[in-house]
């Protein structure tokens, strides 16, 4: 969801910056956008065999206190000596004690992050990008469709809508993973299943010993539960192949492009719209995204 660019269409100088020119999208303050804030890992939650959630706290209390973000925004979590990677901020927007990122061990940075212990230092640059337009969704039904670690990108948003439950209509969460072991945030899932004011559908791809819940791929289950598109916003995140089929299913069910949102991942380096690799046509995922409506995506080249 691209931010409205209200700032002056002019190039700035150091003098402008010192004079307090608004210099960044999404309300971020002046300063050196490349410098990470040093933070300490205060807790590590093993979500699945290959996903850990890191709760980090900025070493500077003032930074921690001032920290706020919109649901759907991302941050760069980095290890000095290894590098930085982009992750969704998935703690609640109301959480003031720490910032949480969930990391699947896969590449250079993520594998190194998995080696971290409580007390280790990380560098954090956050928040970045644009969140979901949750204010514009007030009064609407919300349908979350998530697969695997896609839940990390939507957790903050889910928590936001649950914390502001009265602002929204029906809330449905469809979440699937390959096996029950791969379901993240099991404590959340327990909570959802207890609550009467939301409808949570949890599914796994195939039968698994001890699993008594639903079995089936997310897009198929979505068609089974056949949500009513009327006054509903559908938000999806998961592996690219899942997103592809979910979007097709939603279209089949008469969800319009304006009703459908997704949040994208791309390889990123700077995270501030300069280094040039996360573009899809003229849009940068790091500053114009990661949240895009289907209507916006249709305008872009097929380079997802």
């Amino acid at each position, binding site marked *: 969801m691209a*931010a409205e*660019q*209200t*700032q002056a*269409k*002019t*190039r*700035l*100088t*150091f003098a402008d*910056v010192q004079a307090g020119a*608004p*210099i*960044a*999208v999404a309300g971020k303050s002046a300063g*050196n*956008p*490349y*410098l*990470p804030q*040093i933070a*300490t890992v*205060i*807790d*590590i939650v*093993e979500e699945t065999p290959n996903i850990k959630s890191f709760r980090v706290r900025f070493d500077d209390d003032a930074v921690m206190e001032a920290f706020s973000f919109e649901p759907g925004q991302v941050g760069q979590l980095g290890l*000095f*000596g*290894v*590098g930085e990677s982009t992750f969704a901020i998935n703690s609640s927007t109301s959480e003031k004690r720490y910032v949480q990122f969930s990391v699947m061990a*896969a*590449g250079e940075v993520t594998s190194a992050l*998995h080696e*971290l*212990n*409580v*007390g*280790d*230092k990380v*560098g954090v640059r956050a928040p970045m990008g644009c969140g979901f337009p949750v204010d514009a969704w007030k009064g609407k039904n919300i349908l979350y469709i998530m697969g695997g670690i896609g839940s990390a990108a939507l957790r903050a948003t889910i928590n936001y809508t649950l914390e502001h439950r009265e602002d929204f209509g029906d809330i449905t969460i469809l979440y699937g993973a390959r096996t029950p072991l791969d379901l993240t945030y099991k404590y959340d899932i327990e909570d959802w299943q207890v609550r009467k004011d939301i409808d949570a559908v949890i599914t796994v791809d195939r039968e698994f010993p001890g699993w008594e819940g639903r079995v089936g791929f997310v897009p198929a289950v979505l068609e089974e539960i056949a949500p009513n598109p009327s006054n509903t916003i559908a938000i999806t995140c998961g592996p*690219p192949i899942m997103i592809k089929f979910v979007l097709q299913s939603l279209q089949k069910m008469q969800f319009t492009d304006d009703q459908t949102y997704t949040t994208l*991942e*791309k*390889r990123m*380096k*700077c995270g*501030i*719209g*300069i*280094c*040039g*690799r*996360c*573009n899809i*046509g*003229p849009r940068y995922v790091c*500053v114009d995204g990661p949240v895009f409506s289907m209507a916006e995506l249709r305008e872009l*080249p*097929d*380079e997802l």
Partner: protein
Amino acid sequence: MKFLAQDQLQAFLGHLAGGSRVVVPVKGEDGVVLFRPWSPGTEVELDVLLAKQSAKDYVFRQSETYLRYGYAMAGEAAAQVDDSHEATVVSDDPATRKAAQDAAVTAHATLVAEPVNDAPDQVIFGLRPCDVRGFVQMDNVFGGYGGFYFDPYYNAKREATTLVAVTCRDPRSTCFCTTVGGSPDGTEGADALVTQVEGGFTVESFSEKGEKVLGFTGLVDASTDQTLKAETVKEQAVDRVDVAFELEGVQENLRANIDDPGWHDLAMRCISCGTCTYVCPNCYCFNITDEMVEGQGERLRTWDNCFNPTYTLETSGHNPRDMKSNRFRNRFSHKFWYYPEKYDSLLCSGCGRCITHCPTRIDIREVLSVMGAPRPEATTATGEEA
């Protein structure tokens, strides 16, 4: 307008070098012209029109350390740290967990990270007006244009740099600055402009920094004759630059032609190296990496380019621009569609380096004449592809 006699050039550069580093085009033993720091006696090469590379490197360094850091452990704490890298077991008991956290925090306490931003005053002398426009066009992306981020590293160097351009006396057939809004005597972004005339140079300044350049006492007022001659040089130069393609409508046509099979045809002879982007005065994409030796590390940014096959490669193995033709399309679309859409400026100043340095002479003029114009209804270019 001032005049600088040819035999005063070294003294002039010496004057400039008094307060800052001076960078000039220099011809090496192998005949290759590159921008190099000047020292007394260094011959300035102005006859060869374009240095192999633009002067971009002196403001936007090819590799630049922007953060230094080090891990150090206080003596006592270090002794207690278990080096075994065992995964932390998070205890269920809050008190135990708290104690473990406190101990760990103390042990790992000293991480020092210091930003580095080295920006010496410098004068770049002898770059061409297209090279200067390259900086002007890049300024937007680094300068927070439109409310985006302000890059302190680029801007520190940019503000400490004085650009003394030289009029292109003999533009090449591959020059197309006038097509993209520039000129062989263009002054946009230049602090001063020198023009080669008989016996020396006329010198004009356009900014406060440029005025400082004129502070050299060896400069005299240019005679009417010299001024007229300079005008003639400029006019003749403008005549030598051909209009390469129709700029109007390029942005819209690129958008309309995004899926056109013509991209495949044009990209066939591309070898997907990064030459065009690294010699380009405008291309600014970069990579960020960490380098660490024995507990001391640096985070640096280095030029990168969209032709690099691993540029967009994700950890999962998925690559949004896996095909050579996709990467090819990105560069031209970025310069004439994506960038203008965000920053209201082209990202090409028409120097033609990408044409002459490309190992297979891919011609940006041809690419834009073809893909920047309305295309006939999709013809199957790649046979099985279509």
